[in-house]
């Protein structure tokens, strides 16, 4: 069985990190008010997108490399749009965008590309 390349491991870890940061922000932002539901929902969406990216790097990942890269850009775009709508904190967004860019960098490595295209169910 082929071992997972280091770049793919780093990409997967970064995906989990982005998801965990989003969940922490969600917990910090929690208010038992109807008006907070939208902002909390945005953090939840971003967390789901990051966890999906982390899953995409796994051995039985759901996406080919090009789709994984596209979804990474979509995740970064979702974070940027959330900032424009004022739904998430700017400092948290900067950290999440940096995590997203690092995932793109890990995906750009040839070994991660080969891994993502070969290891399908």
């Amino acid at each position, binding site marked *: 069985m082929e071992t997972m390349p280091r770049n793919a491991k780093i990409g997967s870890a970064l995906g989990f990190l982005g998801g965990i940061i989003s969940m922490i922000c969600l917990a910090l932002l929690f208010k038992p008010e109807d008006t907070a539901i939208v902002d909390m929902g945005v953090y939840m969406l971003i967390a789901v997108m990051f966890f999906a990216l982390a899953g995409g790097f796994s051995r039985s990942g759901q996406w080919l490399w*090009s789709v994984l*890269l*596209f979804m990474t*850009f979509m995740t970064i775009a979702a974070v940027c749009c959330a900032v*424009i709508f004022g739904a998430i904190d700017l400092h948290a967004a900067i950290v999440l965008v940096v995590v997203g860019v690092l995932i793109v960098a890990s995906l750009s490595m040839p070994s991660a590309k080969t891994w993502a295209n070969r290891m399908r169910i």
Partner: protein
Amino acid sequence: MKVQKDHSVAFAWFGIIGVAAFLIAWLCAASIDTAWEFGVNNLSELGISDTDAKFYFNYGCMITGALVVIFGFGHAVTAKNAGHTAGGAFLAIGGVLLALVGLITMDSESDLHNYVAISAALFIFFALIAITAGNWAADRKIFAGIGIVIAFMLAAMVFVYDVAEFSAYGIILGMIWFLAESVRMITSGKND
């Protein structure tokens, strides 16, 4: 190993010079007209300023428009696929309209200035989408990703910002995309 470049490298410099020209014109105009505030006043208000700022802004738009026309033409003639061809054509039309923004100022009696400015923005946005699709198809996926993120941000800004904020932040995002696309053209080999 020497990498042979095609003419897209030469055309790419028009994009970089265009961004630099507009940035210099904007900064000069804004520094002369101290009453103009970023994100508060509409960008087109610089074109009808009581000070010399109007000359910097209007001539800046005309020069940048001409450079964008050449940049778009270069995109079309050195196109790798249909996305680049269509994007280049849109850019050329957007460049003509941008030059007209400098000619038809806000103080004209009709709403022609607004129509021309909105049309220029729309054509450049269409070019962004077409060229992003072209870059994705040409396997320049990182540059396509920059286009994807900027396109979504611009679309979100339409719903949230007023005209003054949108014109200021939108043009900054547009300039970032122009620079990224110029770098993409410069780094493209002949056989990409």
